[in-house]
């Protein structure tokens, strides 16, 4: 078995390591840990965070790629977990949790009928059998979920005192997630949970795989946009004068170019370049991964200006405050003033804009792929699924499940990110009312 590290894998894990370091630092800092406790004290925010963390977990498990020795296909950990869905090949569309295909065709016996799906057990031949089977699997899932949940609670109770009253919503969320997982695990070998698409590929698999793409867009883009935004914003606000003029000139110029146009132009250039140098990439996976990363870079290039502007304004205000003046009087160097005095005092802006921008960027991915300048066609993403749904929605009867799946997955991610972001903003924004 050989591990394969894609660029985005590497960056995601770096980001994960950085956030773990941040967690340790926050725990050591009284002021900050108080603020975070305040964030999690709100039941809604805590539940949103648990859902969000679950998404992150899936994204991370999809970011460890390896190749088995006797095989040429590259798998991620998530792929192995979803193997039944990945390997079951159907011919074409089927509705969620069905046992036969969506459309009729001529069968081997010469009659017109619906082909039985490969994945579903051959014993199930009519709808009532199917419902019975589904119900029994669901009941099993519920039983397992309850047992796992009880074990989990007992395990947790060993380490901390559990206050069920305060954390009720968190426990409800955790139970819902556990139930979802057991249900998926039990159904997966027997059913296409969200049906199959035109090429007979499992839609649930596609939707889950898209989580990583969405996450990379949401997280890497902000990560790449942060350094220029913070450094240039601080410099513009602190040094003022000519430095400020130059930096303002740069970001107003970038802002004046329509974002989509710039992205489309750069993506097309990239496309041509990659096509001409097709032999440089070891596999299609690496190629599409690189395209994804470069798309993030392009997006970062256009999206740092907003935060930069905010930081500049805040720094202008801060640099007139007495503690900065006092440091100057003591002859503390400019670099130290920038990083010790000014940067920690604008970090709340950075944090707020990261969490707020995240959901926006996930949505932008969908828009770009829909327009046709997004990720590679072979990369699974919600945008690509929506793009494909254009034709599916015009068929009769309507093929609704691929669009619905991508919508639900994206909706839950964006909603949980937004709810969490809202709470973060409330607590960290000096003008926010934290009594809510």
């Amino acid at each position: 078995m050989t591990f394969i590290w894609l660029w985005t894998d590497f960056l995601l894990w770096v980001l994960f390591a950085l956030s773990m370091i941040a967690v340790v630092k926050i725990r050591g800092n009284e002021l900050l840990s108080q603020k975070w406790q305040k964030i999690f004290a709100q039941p809604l925010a805590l539940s949103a965070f648990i859902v969000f963390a679950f998404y992150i977990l899936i994204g991370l498990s999809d970011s460890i790629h390896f190749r088995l020795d006797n095989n040429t296909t590259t798998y991620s950990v998530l792929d192995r977990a979803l193997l039944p869905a990945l390997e079951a090949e159907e011919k074409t569309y089927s509705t969620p949790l069905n046992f036969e295909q969506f459309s009729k065709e001529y069968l081997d016996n010469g009659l017109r009928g619906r082909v039985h799906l490969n994945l579903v057990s051959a014993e199930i031949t009519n709808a009532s059998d199917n419902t019975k089977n589904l119900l029994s699997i669901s009941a099993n899932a519920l039983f397992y979920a309850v047992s796992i949940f009880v074990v989990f609670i007992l395990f947790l109770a060993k380490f901390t005192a559990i206050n069920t009253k305060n954390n009720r919503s968190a426990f409800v969320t955790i139970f819902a997630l556990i139930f979802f997982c057991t249900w998926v695990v039990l159904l997966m070998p027997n059913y296409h949970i969200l049906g199959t698409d035109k090429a007979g590929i499992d839609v649930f698999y596609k939707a889950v795989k898209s989580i990583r793409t969405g996450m990379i867009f949401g997280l890497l883009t902000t990560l790449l946009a942060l350094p220029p935004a913070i450094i240039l914003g601080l410099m513009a606000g602190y040094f003022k004068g000519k430095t400020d003029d130059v930096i303002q000139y740069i970001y107003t110029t970038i802002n004046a170019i329509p974002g989509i146009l710039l992205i489309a132009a750069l993506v097309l250039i990239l496309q041509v370049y990659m096509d001409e140098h097709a032999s440089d990439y070891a596999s299609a996976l690496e190629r599409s991964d690189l395209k994804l990363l470069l798309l993030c870079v392009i997006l970062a290039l256009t999206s740092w200006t907003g935060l930069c502007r905010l930081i500049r304004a805040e720094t202008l205000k801060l640099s007139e405050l007495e503690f900065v003046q006092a440091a100057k009087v003591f002859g503390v160097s400019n670099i130290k003033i920038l990083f010790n005095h000014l940067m920690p005092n604008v970090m709340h802006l950075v944090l707020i804009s990261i969490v707020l921008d995240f959901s926006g960027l996930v949505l932008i991915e969908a828009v770009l792929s829909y327009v046709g300048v997004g990720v590679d066609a072979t990369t699974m993403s919600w945008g690509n699924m929506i793009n494909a749904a254009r034709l599916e929605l015009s068929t009769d009867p309507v093929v609704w499940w691929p669009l619905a799946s991508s919508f639900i997955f994206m909706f839950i991610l964006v909603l949980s990110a937004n709810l969490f972001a809202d709470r973060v903003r409330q607590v960290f924004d000096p003008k926010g009312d934290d009594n809510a």
Partner: protein
Amino acid sequence: MPKTLLSVENLSIFTKSQKIVNNISFSINEGEIFALVGESGSGKSLTALSIVDLLAKNLKKSGNITYQDADLSHSQNIQNFRGSEIAFIFQDPTNSLNPIMTIGEQVDEALALHTNLAKKQRKSRVLDLFDQVDLDTSMQMYARYPHQVSGGQKQRVMIACALAGGAKLLIADEPTTALDVTTQKQVLELLLELRKNQKLSILLITHDLSVVKLMADRVAVMRQGDIIENRDKAEFFQNPKEQYSKELLVSLPKGTRDQAFGDVLIKGDKVKVYFPIKTGLLQRTTDYVRAVDEINFTLKQGQNLAIVGESGSGKTTLAKAIMRQIDLFDGHVSMGNKAIKKYDRKSYAAKVQIVFQNVTSSFNPRMRISQTLLEGLQALNPAQANAAYLAELLQEVELDPELMHRYPHELSGGQLQRLSIARAISVNPEVIICDEPTSALDATVKVQILDLLLRLQKEKGISYIIITHDISIVDYFADHVIVMKQGKALESGATQGILANPHNDYTKALLSSVLN
């Protein structure tokens, strides 16, 4: 027996977790000026806001508030009284006026709300009100925007708005704190006159006992949510009952400075700080703002120099020029025999230090006190950058050394100002510039801070340049005074001489406006 206009019984104000105002009761008679005195955080402003039901949403109140015969305890009743019967003026008139409406329109708006006058009648009524508050009664004044009039005039407009509704009770929350001393007196006199002519009752909220002495009929002292003393003014000033009231009344002793000084430390010769006004497409400099214009000064070792003036007079700019934070346009400042420009950054910083006005922003909110103090030491005097020296410093400014492990928001204003003095003396400077060191502090703390500065002067031979608008500090603290207005020095000389015998009209006005 005068009639009671407003009575407050058992008023309490709570947050979720604590009681901020504690079962207080008081009443105000018709035509009476009732002063509520206390330091910041004592609950006096909340009390006032609760009367007109303007408390923040997270605060709850209980108790009875009766205005004439109406019960104001419930919010639905209050709307009928706000503005028409009870008017409110706030501390900062700049924030109370809408910057995009002319001042005439704002008074007119209040009239339209509370009277049935037609548009034309209202206009003449506005000018009538302008006359009552001693504003110019021309249409030019009517058409001015708030930024075109002075702070004192803005507060007059606010009072005119309050009168427009025909209010019988005026709640004035620190009405003159944001104003310069000379304007302060005029506004207070206007209020007194209105009380006399219009039988207005005033609930005056202030921390300034000199304002109380001039204005009030009755005084209530608030401390930590309780009214600890509620008495007639004359009685209160002659014979305060509570220890705390006595502390409030302690005023600074007069001129006790001896006159023996050492050599000249800093000398300024025709100091000018001009800021260019750039106009036109090519940003050519067409004129200058003369922030500091030909100021001469000398500071001798062990001497205290006071620079006095109103806001905008250029006194802080002069201090910044001495700190080398702003370049001189012309003129010369020297320390010893060398121009201050020729010192390198660090050796100058070790000689001249500064203590700021705004105590809360003097320390980085994200750093512990010890980190802030050590950072300065590391830059200038790395050998002494250790905890033992910090502990010594904190003891020097009469603080518990344990405080160095705290964050700024955990400390009081007085403690922070002591710490910023500790920061200044940590590098053993020869001169400390104090920019309004006590104006953000409460009265009782003010004296302590000045005494601390004087003690440090005796022990270490430090000289101070103190920038202030408070004449009482000058008398107590300074040996030499420069009176500044619009960048120019109007008068300069030994403190005793200037205070006893001012030559300049402005200085005279400044001195006479001190309310004692």
